[in-house]
């Protein structure tokens, strides 16, 4: 908003051009730029003025963003053969996806080697957290109703956001589809049917209804079923060569969502959303010698209700309110673990209440400040022996200042948090006070808007999870938070129309991260043999580069090409250990991706390639821990057509075309070549 207050220096046309350029910045669009301008005009046509500025501001931030931002839009997501959010984020740079394989396998994201607990995941602006284990399974989020995925190193540059968005080392935003209606249509249904390898069947629908000028309803549901069986092969030169079928990897899951979108008088908007996810799955387990089948099962139910309001009630002021209540249930059974009461049957219940208020005030047309205050209560109940029944009260506050001039902007955040731990029984974790500063800036050094440099410094932390603190025989209630420090320096360049090269965007960043008091499992000489300790220390130096090109080829063909490279040196610098100086587990030095799509009339061919370099499966960088590189190629053909005047889309995907057998996580084999057919119809 404050940027737009500059008015004169940013006429609408400039904003539009910027928006077009920016759409190209991180990922080349499939359509020629002319079409894109039309699209942006379209969006102006159907939105109130307040929202235009919002859209423009948002995209403006992408180039002016002092922290690296990567975005996959709906158009780009369609080209990536991705079933879930987890599949798609592999194409971001600096990201390692920990994938246990298969449709139902756990998939968590590790950004810039800081560990998965350091990436906060937001679903329509609301953080999805798991106070029990700190993990968000991105395999649970299908791309079916996702409009955009955004990854921010550090944080999103907006200062009008909940404190949680600022507290995390990295943030991943998932945006669901918001209702859009043409002038003549009041409702719209999109039906999709997917079928594929591993016995995958997944029907889904999205229903959008305009209730009034200001009110719209959106409902979506998706059902996923798969037997999860696939062939994998373990083979050594001159040695064994075993091909087997993955067992117990079945999943049945239902996701349903209902949301109400309202436009408000002051130019703001409000959303009320209810979400339900329900699943049953087999846990296929680690494949070890003489053991190819496991029998453990897991059930999950996640429910949340989220309300959001963003509006301006008086001049120069903006208000953002978020409220959420969530309840998560998880049940794990292990028929092989026979107790006196029968097979092991663990049940976990988590509740979260979350409230956040953010006030933003514009002091000058180049200076805005905001105060974000978050309050949350987390509880965990479990039917475990000696379970302490913890409750955590978190009070987070963030004071932010953002100053922006034509060629320079700078943001500072001061974060303060108080975490209050309570337990019903046994030992209680220590209460924690934390304080973290963040500073970020972006600068245009030359007389061209095409090139900018950026830098940021950020301190952040993660709390020990309830499992870290309280899990029977493992938890350690004396744990402290795990701290990270990030330094980043980068540059962006965007350009348009150099002959047949329609657009070009480049961005590169170098960074240094340090983790101290890393929470790691250590031996404790008992049955389970582990306990959590604040022991690790890691130094991470990295480089990320990505380039996107859009080519206009002969015969109305367009080619989009994206290249992505990541170098990471993540060194264990924990004092007095035998692995001092070794690269930390599962962190390749080199990794990269290539994405491309070729468009001709109604046809589209997509090809994408992922490379993950050599890694070590454990701390010591020795031959027995060596994991060789893997690289997969995915191909897709899409045909857009009409069926009884209704838009119809048919897509065929071939994943892992060259049938490479590989493990992302050692002993959790990934599928070889597999297929998927997608049909979608809009009426």
């Amino acid at each position, binding site marked *: 908003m404050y940027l737009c207050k500059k008015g004169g220096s940013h006429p609408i046309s400039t904003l539009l051009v910027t928006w077009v350029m920016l759409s190209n910045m991180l990922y080349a669009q499939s359509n020629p730029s002319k079409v894109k301008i039309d699209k942006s005009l379209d969006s102006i046509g159907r939105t109130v003025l307040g929202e235009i500025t919002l859209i423009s501001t948002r995209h403006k931030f992408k180039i002016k963003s002092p922290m690296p931002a990567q975005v996959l839009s709906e158009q780009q997501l369609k080209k990536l053969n991705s079933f879930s959010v987890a599949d798609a984020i592999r194409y971001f740079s600096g990201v390692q996806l920990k994938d246990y394989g298969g449709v139902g396998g756990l998939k968590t994201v590790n950004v810039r080697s800081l560990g998965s607990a350091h990436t906060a995941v937001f679903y329509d602006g609301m953080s999805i957290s798991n106070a029990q284990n700190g993990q968000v399974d991105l395999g649970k989020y299908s791309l079916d109703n996702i409009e955009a995925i955004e990854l921010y190193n550090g944080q999103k540059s907006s200062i009008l956001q909940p404190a949680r968005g600022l507290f995390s080392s990295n943030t991943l935003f998932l945006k669901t589809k918001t209702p859009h209606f043409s002038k003549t249509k009041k409702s719209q249904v999109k039906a999709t049917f997917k079928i594929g390898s591993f016995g995958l069947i997944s029907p889904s629908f999205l229903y959008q209804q305009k209730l009034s000028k200001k009110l719209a309803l959106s409902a979506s549901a998706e059902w996923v079923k798969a037997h999860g069986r696939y062939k994998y092969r373990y083979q050594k030169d001159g040695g064994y060569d075993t091909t087997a079928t993955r067992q117990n990897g079945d999943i049945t899951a239902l996701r349903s969502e209902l949301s109400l979108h309202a436009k408000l008088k002051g130019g703001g908007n409000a959303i009320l959303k209810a979400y339900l996810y329900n699943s049953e799955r087999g846990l296929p387990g680690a494949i070890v010698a003489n053991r190819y089948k496991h029998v453990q099962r897991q059930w999950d139910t996640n429910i949340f209700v989220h309300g959001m309001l963003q509006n301006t009630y008086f001049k120069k002021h903006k208000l953002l309110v978020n409220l959420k209540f969530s309840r998560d249930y998880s049940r794990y059974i292990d028929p092989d673990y026979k107790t006196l009461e029968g097979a092991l049957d663990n049940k976990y219940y988590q509740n979260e209440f979350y409230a956040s208020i953010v006030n933003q005030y514009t002091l000058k047309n180049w200076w805005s400040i905001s105060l974000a205050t978050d309050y949350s209560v987390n509880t965990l109940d479990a039917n475990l022996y000696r379970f302490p029944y913890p409750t955590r009260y978190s009070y987070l506050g963030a004071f932010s200042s953002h100053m922006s001039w034509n060629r320079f902007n700078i943001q500072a955040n001061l974060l303060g948090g108080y975490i209050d731990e309570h337990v019903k029984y046994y030992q209680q974790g220590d209460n924690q006070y934390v304080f973290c500063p963040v500073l970020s800036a972006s600068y245009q050094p030359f007389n061209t808007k095409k090139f900018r440099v950026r830098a940021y410094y950020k301190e952040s932390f993660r709390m020990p999870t309830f499992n870290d603190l309280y899990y029977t025989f493992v938890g350690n209630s004396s744990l402290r938070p795990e701290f990270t420090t990030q330094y980043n320096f980068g540059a962006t360049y965007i350009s348009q129309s150099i002959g047949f090269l329609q657009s070009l965007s480049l961005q590169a960043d170098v960074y240094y991260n340090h983790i101290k008091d890393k929470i790691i499992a250590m031996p404790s000489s008992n049955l389970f043999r582990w306990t959590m300790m604040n022991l690790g220390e890691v130094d991470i130096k990295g480089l990320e580069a990505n380039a996107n090109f859009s080519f206009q080829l002969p015969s109305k063909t367009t080619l989009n090409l994206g290249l992505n490279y990541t170098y990471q040196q993540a060194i264990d610098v924990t004092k007095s250990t035998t692995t001092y100086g070794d690269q930390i587990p599962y962190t390749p030095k080199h990794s990269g991706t290539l994405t491309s799509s070729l468009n001709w009339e109604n046809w589209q061919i997509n*090809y994408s390639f992922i490379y993950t370099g050599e890694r070590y499966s*454990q701390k010591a960088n020795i031959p027995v821990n060596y994991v060789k590189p893997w690289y997969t190629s995915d191909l897709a053909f899409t045909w857009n057509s009409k069926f009884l005047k209704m838009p119809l889309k048919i897509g065929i995907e071939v994943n892992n075309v060259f049938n490479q057998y590989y493990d992302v996580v050692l002993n959790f084999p990934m599928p070889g070549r597999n297929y998927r057919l997608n049909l979608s119809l809009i009426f």
Partner: protein
Amino acid sequence: MKTNYNFWLLFTLSVITLSGCRSDDTIIPGEEETLPTETVTTVEGFYLLNEGNMNMNKASLDYYDYQTGTYSRNIYGEANPEATLGLGDVGNDIGIYGSKLYAVINNSNKLEVMDVKTSKRIKVIDIKNCRYVTFSNGKAYVSAYDGEVQLGETSANGFVAEIDTVSLEITNAVKVGRQPEEIAIVGEKLYVANSGGYSPPNYERTISVIDLNTFTKIKDIDVAINLHRLKADDYGDLYVSSRGDYYETPSKLFVIDTKSDSVKKSFDIACSNLTIAKDTAYIIGSEFNYSTFDWVINYSMIDVKSETLLDNSFLPQTVSEAIKTPYGIAVDPVSSTIYITDAGDYVSPGTLYCIDKDGNTKFTVTTGDIPGHITFQLKTTTLNP
């Protein structure tokens, strides 16, 4: 312009082509290290079984040859290239009987039988959740947690399997307590320590006694909760450790008289591992305290003849300070040389320390992950020491 276009086409094609090929894996070869030699007596050397952390499938086998002083690390893979995924997951116990080497691979649900000279696989015997092995009179006895096959699917009890060391078939099984651990044989009786570790706080408290002639359980000796280690001395006594409950009840060590099959004596010392050589029991007491979140470690000795706790530690101070996570212990039955292992952080290679009977460190050597179990190779092997 045109060349540029061709460049990108070529580039894309070459990437696609490259993605088709990937170099093949080879079996990771063993590693050798030359250490000081040891005087060959009836003992020629020993095998060390590294457990490997659970789900990592990294159990591995090392061998130390007394005569040459050669320490060979990770020898199983090269000796058995056809064994899919190698030795397996969590090597829990090892023993030699006759010409065969037996390794209990817990999470691989198997007893791996190998040739003692070549460590080549002879047979794999499936035993679900198997724990420890011992031998007597042409038979191998294996304790196991999961009696699904032998006792029916719903039984929480464990069992002891009897295996013929010639035919390598399971010939008999007997139901014991829940989650049985170590086994010892005295005369015609087999003793197994029951833990009940899967159902805290309802731990087992007994040693099950099995008559080897009829292979039936004749009695349970009530000792203390959560039993684990069980070793016999030369005087008809058993030393059995109770792990306690890791909270209020501490770990303790008990002596059982096998003539009366009753508790004879107890020592108020923590015992996470022990071995008996000649008249001395060597005890590692490594206890984790959940109130202080710290370890209390002791290296005690007991004179098993007089059943008295000796005052001194069996380790020189330099070694006990260097060791982070004491884990395995073995003492050469002839020379009384002490071999003790440090499992470190459990996920990195461990260390083996060799200390002669006068307390001098003869060598230290890097092992596999979680070095846990040592079995001596005797010139004419008849017993698992």
